[in-house]
């Protein structure tokens, strides 16, 4: 943060785009600024509204050379922009050097990237020495815009000023990285906790909830807690289902009628695509849960009270499906939230309950709380 840690003393901040560069259509400038603000909005309780006249908290302008603040720009190259820490008057304002060639891609100077950085200053962040951080002072033309995300350093910085975003009561306020607080005080130990999706990933188990996930490794007993976007910026929040196909080293994420694919930190190209490319009928618009079994090379998709089975070898849906969940998994309630396969058992997550199902005995062997994996 800046010396003295100046910050806005309110959570609702106004901004105004005072003038425009001629390098881009106005709507591209508007969009770049909106997206840049959203980057910060997603990790804080801050909200932004645009005004078209009068004094806004953050006044955004394009200018060349001397432009009224005694810190002149320097023509093309070198200094791209500057911004002021929160406060009245010129404080909070962001100035962009219009001698640069502003673009919405990376052929010139990308306005979104620079704006996201400058608006970080407008909100109170100083430069970071972490080269991965958005707040590192040097412009990185190689940044992949589709995969842009804040570094943990940026998130830690801004949350040190404003805290994490306000969440719904069952998620509560939690930091975006692993912590060592008393588990009893964490929302993961809320008896009402349910998950959107659960998947393995290279031997770890990920429990997805809204915009976050818990990461449980067998090596470390204490789960880590992260923003989904801090690992995979293009993945949706509030996902419906997730499953890992281990022999493809790929985790598939499902939300609505779309499917995404990730391999480790990498988001695979060609996604999202329609779930109907898997062979599901058009009537299916959402999958509740999914699990892929390595030994069978089959993936099960659970939709309301039915399930489909997909053959990973043939890349086709098996015939004879859908079947009723209760026919093959007696004791499991229809509409499961998530399913996990471990130690030879299926673990079905239904709201705050979890059912351990033995596929050989075809019976539920234990009923647990959904958060039992998180060592509460």
């Amino acid at each position, binding site marked *: 943060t800046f010396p003295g840690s100046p910050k806005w003393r309110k959570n609702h901040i106004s901004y105004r785009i005072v003038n425009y560069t001629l390098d881009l259509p106005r709507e591209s400038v508007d969009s770049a600024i909106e997206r840049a603000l959203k980057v910060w909005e997603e990790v804080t309780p801050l909200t932004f509204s645009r005004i078209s006249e009068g004094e806004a908290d953050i006044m955004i302008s394009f200018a060349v050379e001397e432009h009224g603040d005694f810190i002149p720009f320097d023509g093309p190259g*070198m*200094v791209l*922009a*500057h911004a002021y820490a929160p406060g009245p008057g010129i404080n909070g304002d962001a100035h962009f*050097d219009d001698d640069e060639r502003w673009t919405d891609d990376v052929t010139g100077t990308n306005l979104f990237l620079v704006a996201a950085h400058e608006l970080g*200053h407008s909100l109170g962040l100083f430069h970071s*020495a972490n080269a991965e951080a958005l707040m590192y002072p*040097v*412009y990185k*033309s190689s940044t992949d815009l589709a995969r842009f995300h804040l570094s943990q350093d940026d998130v830690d910085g801004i949350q040190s000023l404003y805290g994490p975003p306000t969440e719904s009561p069952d998620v509560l306020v939690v930091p975006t990285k692993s912590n060592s607080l008393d588990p009893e005080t964490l929302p993961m130990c809320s008896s009402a906790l349910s998950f959107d999706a659960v998947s393995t990933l290279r031997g770890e188990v990920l429990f997805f909830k809204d915009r976050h996930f818990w990461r449980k490794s067998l090596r470390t007993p204490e789960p880590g807690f992260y923003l989904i976007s801090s690992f995979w910026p293009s993945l949706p929040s509030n996902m419906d289902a997730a499953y890992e196909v281990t022999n493809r080293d790929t985790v598939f994420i499902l939300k609505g009628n779309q499917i995404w694919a990730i391999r480790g930190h990498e988001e695979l190209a060609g996604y999202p695509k329609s779930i109907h490319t898997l062979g599901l009928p058009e009537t299916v618009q959402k999958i509740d849960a999914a699990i892929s079994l390595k030994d069978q090379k089959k993936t099960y998709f659970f939709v309301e009270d039915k399930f489909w089975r997909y053959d990973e070898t043939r890349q086709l849906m098996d015939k004879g499906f859908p079947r009723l969940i209760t026919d093959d998994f007696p004791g499991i309630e229809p509409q499961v939230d998530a399913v996990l396969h471990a130690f030879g058992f299926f673990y079905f997550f239904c709201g705050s309950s979890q059912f351990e199902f033995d596929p050989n005995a075809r019976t539920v062997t234990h009923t647990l709380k959904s958060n039992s994996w998180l060592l509460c």
Partner: protein
Amino acid sequence: YPLHGSEEDAGMEVLQKYLENYYGLEKDVKQFTKKKDSSPVVKKIQEMQKFLGLKMTGKLDSNTMELMHKPRCGVPDVGGFS
């Protein structure tokens, strides 16, 4: 004038401006050119190299020079922004 001499001077000028603008080096040209190997200047170069993730040589090496020529934000890296 020898070619390398003027190249070095140009580099020192860029370095001086960079340290003044972003690392709070006092604006004293004489002190800088005469005492470019003096410990306060070397310290400032090292401070810059450390912040930007470069090897802390305390010298105007090619990596440092290259990074100083990259586009960047005009807000200083250390100290206040007056």
